[in-house]
């Protein structure tokens, strides 16, 4: 029997770290002038790219860095399942937190993640 709780905690941490990276990148993208500025679209694009990268990174981190008990196939499969679920949690948490942040910070660059104003 292995504890899967740390796997989920690490997944949540991944979601938080990648959300932070998305926020930093979004703020680094300058406001553009003109009637059809590209910057809101770029921020949105980076948000979704980081959602995918974060989830995959979380998955790979689990698969390659956790210790798998060789003589306990049940525990091993339990851990792999937890890693898969953790990646799902990471993705979902990233999206939900991103949506909440975007809705909360109405005036600013993070708002572009879900509210691309035209």
């Amino acid at each position, binding site marked *: 029997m292995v504890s899967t709780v740390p796997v989920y905690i690490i997944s949540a941490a991944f979601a938080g770290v990648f959300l932070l990276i998305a926020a930093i990148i979004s703020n680094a993208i300058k*406001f553009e*002038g003109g009637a059809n500025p590209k910057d809101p679209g770029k921020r949105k694009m980076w948000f979704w790219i980081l959602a995918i990268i974060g989830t995959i990174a979380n998955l790979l981190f689990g698969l390659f860095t956790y210790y798998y008990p060789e003589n306990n196939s049940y525990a091993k499969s339990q851990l792999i399942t937890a890693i898969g679920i953790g990646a799902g949690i990471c993705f979902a948490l990233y999206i939900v937190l991103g949506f909440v942040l975007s809705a909360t910070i109405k005036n600013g660059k993070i708002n572009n993640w879900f509210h691309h104003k035209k």
Partner: protein
Amino acid sequence: MSQDKIYVIGIGGTGMRCLECFVHLCAIGMFDNKEINILTLDTDQENGNLTRVWQLIDLYNRIKSPSEKTEDYGGKPLNNTFFSAKLNLTKYWPDYSGEKNYKALARISNVNDENTKENIDLASLFLSDDAQSFYLREGYRAQTHLGSQLMYHAIMEATMKVKQDSADVKPWEKDLMKFIEDIGDKPDRRVFIFGSIFGGTGASSIPVVPKAFNDALYLKTGKNMSAKFGASLLTEYFKFKSPNDAQKKKPGQNVVADSNYFTLNSQAALQFYRNDPTVQDTYKCLYNIGWPVEPIDFSKNSTEAETITGGKEQKNPCHITELVCAFAAYDFINRENFENKSAEYLFRDVPFSEGTFHFDFEDMTAESSSLKNAFAGFYSIALMTLTFQKAALENTEGISGWLQLAKQFGYDGYSELDSQSKLNITNYLKTFLFSLDKSGHVVNGWLYQIRDSFNGKFLLPDLAYAKQWSAIEKINAGTLLPDTENQWGKDKSADKCAQQFAKEFGNQKDSVKEGQGKETKERIIAQLFNTISTLQKLKQV
């Protein structure tokens, strides 16, 4: 502040460029709550400078018009905003089309007719045969003794035709009469005249226009004019290449203005304006405006073989002296009282040493704070719209960009503003500052032309007039004013300044007051004015 009704008259090529400067002062908001009646008076209706000022006034009026309806054209006078003055334009030109010359107009061309011989002799006493023979379609060609007589004659003839309701009365003759009758016999009228005193049309007309208008009014209504007249006495400040013999041999070209005589003309004209009793009786203020350095050469980059005396090709850039004339008009219009019975001769000097000038806001007007806010404010908006909003190319507009950016900061307004209005506002900003041609070269707008006309400092730091696009893009619109408290963009990049402007634009959503306008276009222009005024901390909004 004076409540007199204002009339401004531009005469000849120089007069038109002075008028251009005057219209730009109106655009930056220097004539709040004023309705200004403008008359363009030129012998050459195809003159490049004349058509340019007509187009400018039309663009100004289209920006101010709340709708496409004819009755809305030009909007109304507003307060504390850009484009605050209402401009009414009247166009008049004596009809010198075709091959009309003095002989034809005076009906003395037939030398065999006994009845005209006496008139021929009389004309020959004052005018050389060359002066009587050149075609008048491109103006009076520095022949002021002939021009004054002809301009007076043209105005009186137009009046006669209108009075008699003649069949061949032209619409522009009716318009002139309407303009004169509007000035009427009321004393609360101020008329300011722009023109040079060393060239042709302006120099010929400035001395006679008040008298001609008075006589025309008397002829039409039996009343005398009691308006206050003012004018700029602008002496020699430009030159062009002298005409060659081949050009003078062409039919009707036997007299061509020669700028070698402009200094002499200026000297003679100043003596005349100082001593002539009619001038002293008719004018209240005469503003002496001179140029102490080498005149600017209008033929410098021209490939034309001949001297250009008029026509479409005469589209010369604006000069700082013309802007000074516009400020003379500003002084005249806002003057509180006119104590002197005879003409007052006015001047002021500008710091000048070793061929360089130092023009500061205080040199232009005593109300320098208002000018600082309006001038730097309009410049900043124009600059950021053309650079940050990528609107410097032809047929591009930058107003949508501001509205888009303001949305990022939570302000969603003016969605009802139509695209033509956005384009008109942007086109005005290009005319004011600069534009980019198809190959990416910077084309000088009015302000850049003024800056290029002399050496030295001109109101804003030198970097504000950069010529390379890469340098222009880096100009920080928020650090142009000298006092740190007015520098809203200090320690910021040009991009960050634009963002701050857009954010403040949103904050100013409820700031537009009734006197600043009610219609959509009026409100957005007022909101832009309030935004920049708040940032610059020069004017309470």
